């Protein structure tokens, strides 16, 4: 177990810089998820921590030791790959024992550790099989087992669930969460799936274009997104955004300073007449049993979604009005996308670590948010 510090970490290929100075502290035993759209540099970042990519500038420190020039094997990390990367010519047992054998661990010790890990992951019966005779979920568990037996200080997961089907993904996600609770080791997990990020993480790091957009607990990110990008990325369905023209009764902050209003679909409530903040033409209703997703087209042609408990009685084409609690409204600067704290939600903002900018201040797009 160890903590991890990244200091102004940069990566470039030739003249092109793809990771632009990442500063991050990860505590011992923490579960941190790197999340972002594809090409945001999250996998590169993980591979730099693992030592599979050279560091162009800055430093990676594991347990207070700069590991920039230390081989991957000496860093005390284990990595689980998206493609599992099991050795196809070795049995499950040998796959898990391979690294230990190379490290000249005594045979009994190897055997004990492999059996222990196999018990924990319930793959005892598969030990003699070859990877090609396993299902996707079993392969991924073997890959995790191979990481466990080495007893690493830091676990690295590179999109480990992407190749699994939906049901297995949920199950394996739970297993990883259990594993973290049992081992209490530091884990870094890369995904593009915000649900995985929300459910697994102690803290989420949202990345875009090689920069950190926001770092925080899942709830902080949900309640106080630092900018429109994070707001859009966290939460499903996505947050709705409204400009001044698309609101029936725009709040002063929106009408005065051309800020954008963001409201999550689950925070929109039906409201009539004067109380309505937004009005939209009903387009489509998706009934999911537990809740109903209502797709609407607003006054300025923008589409938005409301998540309701029950199906509205209106027919398609009819106009519906919605309102939202002012504490559930998010304001973002129209140009920079930065969060603006309005007088109405300043109180709640102070409790979180969200935006601290009272005025609709303008910041360069994509600058770091520590």
């Amino acid at each position, binding site marked *: 177990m160890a903590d991890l510090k990244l200091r102004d970490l940069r990566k470039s290929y030739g003249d092109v810089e793809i990771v632009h100075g990442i500063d991050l502290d990860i505590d011992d035993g923490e579960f941190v998820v790197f999340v972002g759209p594809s090409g945001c540099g999250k996998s590169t970042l993980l591979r730099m921590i*693992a*030592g*599979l990519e050279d560091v162009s500038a800055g430093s990676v420190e594991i347990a207070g030791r700069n590991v920039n020039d230390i*081989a*991957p*094997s*000496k860093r005390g*990390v*284990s*990595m689980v*790959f998206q*493609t*599992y*990367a*099991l*050795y*196809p*010519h070795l049995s499950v047992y040998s796959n898990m024992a*391979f*690294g230990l054998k*190379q*490290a000249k661990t005594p045979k009994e010790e190897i055997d004990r550790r492999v059996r222990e890990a196999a018990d924990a992951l319930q793959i005892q019966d598969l030990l003699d099989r*070859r*990877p*090609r*005779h*396993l299902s*996707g979920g079993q*392969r991924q568990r073997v890959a995790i087992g*191979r990481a466990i037996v*080495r007893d690493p200080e830091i676990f690295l997961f590179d999109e480990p669930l992407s*190749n699994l089907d939906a049901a297995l993904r949920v199950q394996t996600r739970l297993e990883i969460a259990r594993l973290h609770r049992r081992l209490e080791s530091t884990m870094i997990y890369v995904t593009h799936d915000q649900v995985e990020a929300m459910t697994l993480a102690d803290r989420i790091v949202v990345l875009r274009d090689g920069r950190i957009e926001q770092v925080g607990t899942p709830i902080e990110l949900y309640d106080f997104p630092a900018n429109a990008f994070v707001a859009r990325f966290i939460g499903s369905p996505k947050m709705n955004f409204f400009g001044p023209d698309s609101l029936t009764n725009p709040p002063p902050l929106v009408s005065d300073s051309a800020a954008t209003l963001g409201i999550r679909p689950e925070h929109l409530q039906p409201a009539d007449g004067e109380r309505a903040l937004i009005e939209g033409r009903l387009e489509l209703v998706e009934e999911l049993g537990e809740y109903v997703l209502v797709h609407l087209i607003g006054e300025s042609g923008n589409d938005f979604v409301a998540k309701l408990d029950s199906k509205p009685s209106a027919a398609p084409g009819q106009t519906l009005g919605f309102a939202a609690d002012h504490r559930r409204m998010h304001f973002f600067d129209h140009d920079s996308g930065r969060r603006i704290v309005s007088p109405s939600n300043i109180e709640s903002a102070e409790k979180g670590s969200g935006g601290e900018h009272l005025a609709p201040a303008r910041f360069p797009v994509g600058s770091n948010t520590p």
Partner: protein
Amino acid sequence: MYPRPIEQASPPARWAYKILLPIALIVWLLPLLAVALTSVRSAGDIISGNYWGWPSEFNMLENYTAIFENTPIGQYLLNSFKVTIPTVIGSVALSCMTGFALAVYRFKANLLVFFMFVAGNFIPFQILMVPVRDLTLQLGMYNSVSGLVMFHIAFQTGFCTLFMRNFIRALPRELIEAARVEGVSEFRIFRYIVVPLMKPAIAALSVLIFTFIWNDYFWATVLTQGADSQPITAGLYSLNGQWLAAWHLVSAGSIVAALPPVSMFFLMQRHFIAGLTLGAVK
């Protein structure tokens, strides 16, 4: 679906197919059949000009024992093995290593080195005849089995490297990275991860190189002379000199010479099944 099964074609097309296919087959196999038939003829048939007719008598045993008893074909065969086997081992072993280095490591001159290996294959080897002969003479390797082996290894490694590099390149890179994170040394990654997965490539390449070298005639005649070091391809030519117009014996010798590469293919063909990497990644 394409191609369509012949049963679905029109009747005339089917008839044409049934007639033309055997004819094409016979035309294609004719030289081989002629050699096989000649190798069992008696000397009398050859002298009387019965080249294509039914043999007057079948002398299979006599002819095949004669070439082993009366000619140094045994020595020639042995030479062929002494040249071919070390060449196969040498060039495949070397190209496994060069292929690994070129496929896995990123270094500045990587592509340049690789292209040099590839470009070497495009040089018509005939133009090298004189310089190579001079070189082997100066190195004191002229007319020796080891000289021929060295030369063949040097020449074949280019093609083998191209083959191996591309094969290793196609292996999932994560396998190597996973091993690296696990603390496996680079040599052990090569030895215990990459080489086992290269088995199909090694088998295919071995058969290919074995056939190339076994069938080589050009360099065998350029770099060697005499039964001490000449392989069988060159040796057959000298058989003809010893027995003027003894074509039945030369044919028998040719059949003997063709057996090893053919049997090599049948022995190794099951290794061609390249399904070994299946299951490594999804």
